[in-house]
């Protein structure tokens, strides 16, 4: 219930933001639909680009958080992804949802960054955990074992994963890619992809068990 209320509130905030933008332009309070916003973005109008950003920033930010090790990195990914999207928005043909198109850009941006940094050693770093602070109230999640974890804790666990594990796990678990696709995208072998996923799952399982033992999970 709390989650639904939160979602409604977020939608209300979004509508308010879009309305404010619309009020500041000659549209006089009329919120344009997606097609109008996209056309405005193609024309390079900053107001429409702002509208598009306001509309999808939160959704895309969650996607970026799954591929980033901390809040700042996720914002960098989000920024990079939106810039790419605005520069290439003419290539959006209208087939499929715009949100899906935008999400693919974010994921590809994350993959590009991963490949760029692939030579770096995978080190589990917990330095950034403290800096991670979700803005919204926490949402409780019920999972087998009768324990409850917050979205914050779940996101934190993903971000604690080494970069390679995190990338493979996110692509597999959230985006539904198969190992062959992951291997192709990341430039690794299929067996490496499988191993990374296995290790990621083990690591996550271990962390959840640990949390339960320490009763760090909200019960």
């Amino acid at each position, binding site marked *: 219930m709390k989650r639904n209320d939160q979602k409604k509130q977020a939608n209300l905030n979004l509508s308010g933001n879009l309305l404010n933008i619309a009020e500041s332009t000659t549209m006089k309070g009329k919120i344009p639909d997606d097609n109008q916003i996209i056309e405005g973005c193609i024309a390079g109008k900053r107001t429409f*680009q702002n509208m598009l950003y306001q509309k999808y920033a939160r959704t895309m930010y969650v996607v970026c958080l799954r591929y980033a090790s901390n809040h700042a990195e996720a914002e960098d990914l989000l920024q990079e992804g939106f810039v790419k999207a605005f520069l290439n928005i003419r290539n959006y043909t209208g087939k499929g949802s715009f949100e899906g198109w935008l999400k693919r850009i974010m994921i590809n941006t994350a993959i590009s960054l991963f490949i760029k940094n692939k030579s770096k050693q995978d080190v589990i770093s917990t330095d950034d955990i403290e800096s991670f602070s979700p803005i919204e109230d926490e949402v409780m999640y019920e999972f087998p074992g009768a324990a409850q974890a917050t979205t914050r804790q779940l996101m934190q666990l993903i971000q604690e994963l080494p970069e390679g594990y995190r990338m493979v796990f996110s692509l597999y678990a959230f985006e539904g890619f198969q190992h062959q696709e992951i291997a192709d995208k990341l430039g690794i072998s299929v067996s490496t992809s499988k191993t990374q996923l296995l290790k990621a799952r083990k690591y996550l399982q271990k962390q959840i068990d640990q949390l339960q033992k320490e009763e760090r999970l909200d019960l």
Partner: protein
Amino acid sequence: MNADRQNIDDLFREGLADCNFAPSTKVWGKISKRLSWYEFISLNFTNFLHNSYLIGTAGLTASALITGTLLLTQVDPPTDLSTVTPQPKEVAVVNESSHEVGNAVAHSTVTPQLNVADQPIVIDKKERNPQEQIIALQPAEPSSLEKRSSQTTISPLNSHEAKLNVETLIADLDLREVLALPSKTLKDSCTDPILLCLGFNMGYMQRSLPLTGGDVTSKNPFGGLVARVESGRWYAETGISLHEEEDHGYYKAFYRTFDSVGFYEKVESYIPDPSKPDEVILITRRLAIWDSVDRYGEAQTLMNYRYLNVPFKLGYRFLSGKWYNLSAYGAGVMSLQTATQKTDPVFSSRFYRILVLEDHTLERRSLLWSLQAGLRFDVALSKRIFWEFEPWYRVYTKSAYLSPLSKSGQAWGLNTGFSVKF
């Protein structure tokens, strides 16, 4: 184990499916800045005005590069022959140019004792081969040649033939002298007393007009005619050019909106029912009942202003070559507002009647003065026709608006065009 693994995947997938995190508010600012930068550096073929930044930057860079290159490579500064007084040490010596005719040997020597202080002679000595030295004289002065011949010492072995050889040498020098005279170049043509140039140009102007609540920036194409008088390195120029610029008009209005709250059937007439003698058929018309609400609203409209610009330029050519000139100038520019067009305000309601309409559009001055500085790079396409490229910057002495709260504006632009010299 498999089930556990699946649970882990599901746990995270479902747990993070509807989560709601918000990025910091600074992200949009960064995106906006980066987009502005990409717009700045990218060409947009559908909107040429959009490229004015790029053209301006490219133009200024090109001007700076050309200026720098010319300054570094220029070793032959323009010379006005009429004003040069050669010093004795500038007189080159033809050393022992010998011509053998039979047994006779003529040694022609121009000695340093030659009195050239009152002769406008410049002698350039160039070696073609070890045996021959070429003399180029500018301009031809028969008296100097005579003097030189008079300084020639002749071997007494065969004085008659030797004299002939010396005359041949002098004639040869004379011929080379004629050949060495350069044709009239751009550099020389600029030294003509007064030149009249007429031309046309066009360009783009980026103009910023600060208001109290923000800036209005417009990019306008313009075009016009120029007339220029050149004398030596100085020139004076004037002309006319037209440009249009867009701005917003502001209206506030009290207006009455209408909405239907119900309908009724108004009986307009009736006729007897032919089938039922005791009844009539009503002829009705459906009418709406309207309710009205008075509202207060604001609307922006599009304004279009046309300006006639008359510059008064004074420039100085500080670099010139065979095919180019580079000048700097300062100017006072008079801008006269010649026309204004505006669209009607439109309010958001579908049905409305305006009760009071207030025009809050800032009124503009009809006459504006500005100070302008710029560079002019012109390239000779032929003897008379020139292509010109001119980046400039302008500061207005007063605000474009009559409002005392608004500040004076600025503009920069690029002209390019052609001129013909007469």
